[in-house]
């Protein structure tokens, strides 16, 4: 065989190795953001689990505010469904959007509930309620931090995927689309959750 043939073979081998390298890197980044989403999921579940407790504790004091409690309970149910949907397809634009809207609704419901509590000093003094409020505050923070970590990982994946040449190779090997960031409408409120005063 002539030297030209060897050069062609060498180039092909280099190209194949490079494609494998890019594919592995993309897949590793995807696994990372999927793990990042699993973290958010854990923390969102923790949040959802706290709400029945909160509603039950508040019920005794808030007999005339049943509508707010009902709203929170319903928002929680919707959010749980959204988490389940997102669980199967993390990073997907549609499920992330649904999750973002459901969690935002839950956050604003909780915000209204907090505002209601202001009128009930007995409830604010309740030992059980104080502990719940700390649990809620820490959970909001955990959700926020887990979301930051997830978004950082998604950003890393997207940036690499869009760079050249991965942008060409990615489309061929099942990495043709950006992963979706998870933004909550009231992310500002979530960040500030520790200031919630019961």
């Amino acid at each position, binding site marked *: 065989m002539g030297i030209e043939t060897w050069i062609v073979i060498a180039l092909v081998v280099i190209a194949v190795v490079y494609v494998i390298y890019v594919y592995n890197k993309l897949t590793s980044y995807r696994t990372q953001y999927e793990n990042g989403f699993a973290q958010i999921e854990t*923390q969102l579940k923790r949040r959802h689990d706290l709400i029945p407790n909160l509603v039950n504790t508040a019920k005794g004091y808030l007999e005339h505010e049943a509508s707010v409690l009902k709203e929170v309970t319903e928002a929680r149910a919707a959010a749980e469904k959204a988490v389940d949907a997102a669980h199967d397809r993390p990073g997907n634009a549609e499920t992330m959007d649904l999750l973002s809207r459901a969690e935002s609704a839950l956050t604003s419901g909780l915000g209204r509930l907090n505002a209601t509590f202001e009128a009930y000093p007995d409830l604010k003094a309740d030992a059980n309620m104080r*502990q719940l409020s700390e649990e809620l505050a*820490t959970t909001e923070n955990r959700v926020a931090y887990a979301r930051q970590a997830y978004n950082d990982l998604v950003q890393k994946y997207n940036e690499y995927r869009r760079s050249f040449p991965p942008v060409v190779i990615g489309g061929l090997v099942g990495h043709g689309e950006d992963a979706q960031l998870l933004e909550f409408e009231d992310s500002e409120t979530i960040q500030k959750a520790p200031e919630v005063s019961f």
Partner: protein
Amino acid sequence: MDFREQQDLARRQTRILVALYVLLLIAAAAAVGGLIWLALILGEQAQAAQGAGASRAPMPDGASWQAFAWAAGLTGGGILLVTLFRWFTRSDGAKVARSLGGRELTGAGETDLTPTERQYLNIVDEMAIASSLPRPRVFVLDREAGINAFAAGTRPENAAVAVTRGALEQLSRDELAGVVAHEFGHIANSDIRLSVRVAAMVFGFTFLFFVARWWFHVGVGPGRQDARLRIAMLVGAAAIALVGLLTVFFGRILQAAVSRQREFLADASAVQFTRYPDGLKSAFEKLKGGASSRVESDAAAEMNHAFLFRAGGARLFDTHPPLEERIRRIEGQG
């Protein structure tokens, strides 16, 4: 800011320091060896001057060089051994925290936690998520009324964080979160390992004091040396002690300078984790407003570099930058 990058930087800094250490070690070993060599030459001259050469065989050729090699080798080896002794100790964060009077909070099945302790545990869990680190072991220093905190442990897997009772009582949730985030910054940036190693290297040179003391004893001790040799030995002992003093002195200053840089870095990491600079800033301002950061425990002096604020000690060897400067940098970042 990328932690991988920061950890690489810490590793690079360690390598530079190790290179500096090796140079100093060679210099110190050569200095001691040279003094021995000089003493032998002087001794020979003294004997020759007294005319004692006739009654004793003259020193064989190369004996003074052999003495030089032995002295230099023993000194270098001694410094190295003392360093290695410290290099690998104090690796376990929980042990360090206990030695400072820390009480562990496990957060698993403890029912008698106060609300602030519960909050502290929650904050640690939050920061573990924010920093993507395993959760360290958590301690409270019950006997300390000042506001302070530290991280210990040379690897994330054996790390511990501790805060004083004063910090739990006097800081708000946001402030405590900033403080805990700062300690996580130390863990994430491998600061504890770096400072342990720098301290070990500085400590190694204290071996020179043993050498100096030994020379001194030989110099004044009984023997058949003449006065000139005795004086030479004493001068040699003083010279070795001086070399030791200088290396330890500059080592301490270097150690403090490294520590101050790592404090800034940990502050920056804290802001990155919490995305909320006001918490740590407000804790600093509380300190500036007159709250104490003093740590009473005797073991604290050696651990000064690990604390959030200075636990005490002199200004030149300060392991922490001034509060105003730290606040200014956090503001610039936020």
